[in-house]
């Protein structure tokens, strides 16, 4: 399944689920990445990692490897 790490710049998608086996998954949930939320990739750092997503009206930067636990539709 496609994950947030695969998004193109400016791509807007809805979260399907969060992979609970990822060690960062709980914090990712806590900062607002929950199923049903719409996210958009709005910035990528110079070194291609971390990536910044808009979620629930704010911007959250997470590493690419962490974004891969966010499954999107």
């Amino acid at each position, binding site marked *: 399944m496609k994950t947030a790490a695969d998004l193109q710049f400016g791509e807007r998608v809805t979260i399907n689920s969060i992979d609970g086996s990822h060690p960062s998954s709980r914090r990712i*949930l806590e900062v607002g990445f929950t199923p049903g939320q719409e996210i958009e990739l709005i*910035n990528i750092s110079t070194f291609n990692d971390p990536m910044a997503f808009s979620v629930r*009206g*704010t911007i959250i*930067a997470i590493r690419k490897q962490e974004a891969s636990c966010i499954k999107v539709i």
Partner: protein
Amino acid sequence: MSTNTIGTLPLVILVGPPNSGKTTLFNFLSGKNYKTVNYPGATVEYSISRLQKKFNLKANILDSPGIVSLYPNSPDEKVSIEALYSHPSFGIPDLVLVTADASQLSRHLLLVKQLIEAKFNVIVVLTMSDILYKKGYDISIAKLSKELSCKVVKVDGRNGNGTDELIKEVREELKNIENGIKQKPVRLDNSVSFDKLIKDYRLIEEIEQRVIFENNGKTFPDIKNANQQLAELSNYLKSSPKNKIDQTTLKIDKLLLHKVWGLVFFLLIMAVTFTSIFWLAQPLMELVDSAFGYLSTEAVQILGNNWLSNFIANGVITGTGAVLVFVPQIMILFLILGFLEDTGYLARGAMLIDKPLSKIGLNGRSFVPMLSGFACAIPAIMATRTIPNKRERFLTIFIIPLLSCSARLPVYALLLAFLFPENKSWIAGLVLASIYIFSIIASTVTAGIINKFSSKIIKEEDNSSFILELPTYKIPKLKVILNNTYHSSMAYVKKAGTIILFLSIIIWFLTYFPDSNPKINANNLTQEQIEQLTSAERISNSYASDLGKFIQPIMKPLGLDWRVGVSLIPTFAAREVFVSSLALIFKVTGDKGALQSSILKEMRRATISDTGKKLFTTSTIVGLIIYFIFALQCISTMAIARKETGSWRIPIVQLILFTLMGYIFALLAVNSLKLFGVG
């Protein structure tokens, strides 16, 4: 503030997610008179204050570091959450004020909900409703209060409107608590399930739907049974413009987080930061310096030439001057850090540099502590608590002492002034900038090497993570920044000041006693020459000289003698003492003019007694600078590293490794310079 007043007054604790306007609220409630151990970049310690007098309510208010939820993810969060239940020095809070950004309600209510679930006495303080309003929405306080079954107050962070109402509610709530039922908070189950979090968020989304309405009076459709209509709700949320990101922030980020220009701006901002520390502070430092030089001269003139005047002029005044001379630099660094943090740039900097830092075993979150390390290693090491991964955190702590802290500045300033005459001070500025760059390179290379080869020094292994909110860009509040800068600088002066003054007095004692009165053959000598000879004789008969002869063998390969050695011994407690020690050992008492120029004059004159060669030459000065770049000379840093890592292993390895590195590199530099004919 004494601890017993804390014990008897009600304790109100302020909690909230990062960027929820918590510190602004604290400033409204406490006014100016708070006691703080806060440093820009990370609220890792607590600020405590009485409520402002004008509120006419006697209570202590405690500011705590930002937390996202009651389940900790990093050491600082763990500390904050533990302190919520029972603060080690202030006890169990009577009342919890939790801040929530009204325009971020669906995220910030998570913590509110958890606090209520844990049975804390909670008042919710809604901030930034002006931003919500600008987006075209408003919020019903009464409805939210009913939904959460706790009190809710709106406070405007721009002008403090609503603070009086908040105080009214606090007063009432404290009275209720006093009169009987005081709930005891319960610990939440740490193994809370994934589904519970998702469920909590759904409930919060439903609450948000019911309390937020459009400006023109239209309400959202009231979805009672949202579980069944989740899809519909989510669709509604998706298109909801209240979740729209601030457009100005997006525009600025297009530039500051641009793939190429982002890095250019980052380097530019860092460069401006460091150069302005030097250029802006220079005139202020000179002012402080000449003021103390003047005071010291005056003291001798008023009190006459005896041991008391010598003690006051050289022990006390010079010692204090050595501390105060670099306060301008610390203040400017804190000011810039506070400014960068308040605008919202620091988080972007952390994001930009996360990847390169992770390559050498650090984390994007190491960025702010490392930046603070240029002011002082102590707050910097405390700020590492925001790094969740233990290994990355310990490695950050390990390399922080290599970053050029402000205590080294007076030393560099003196040594560079020796190398470059006054009319070429711009070269000194450039060299200082390169010392900074060099210290960054040295620390990152060290981190890389240790990360690669050593699992002995830093053993911990954990999940490496970087999750950071990039806050909306804001115009910084000058008043708040100035206030924080003042408090941080004062805390620093008090801490460093006492140690340095104490050491200066000891060195004075060692250099002054035994109070010998050497006989000088005064034939054909001017009065000035006689004074110089007398003081040189006195020093070589002093206790300091006995001590110095011990380290003579270590100093000799560096082309230095026991006098520099004696000046270096107390630097292990605090490196900036080097300047005042040199002043005591080389300065002629009662010399007119600024401290620095008078020390420089004597340094230029000093010779090594058995060879008659100049003691301070280009090569020996370069050697000293290199030694100071590496050597760990700060008792407080070691103490805080011990406290934060939980053992002496890291501080002791730091002390031995860095000091050895300093010595060896200095040795190499001095001797290769000599090889190439540089004196």
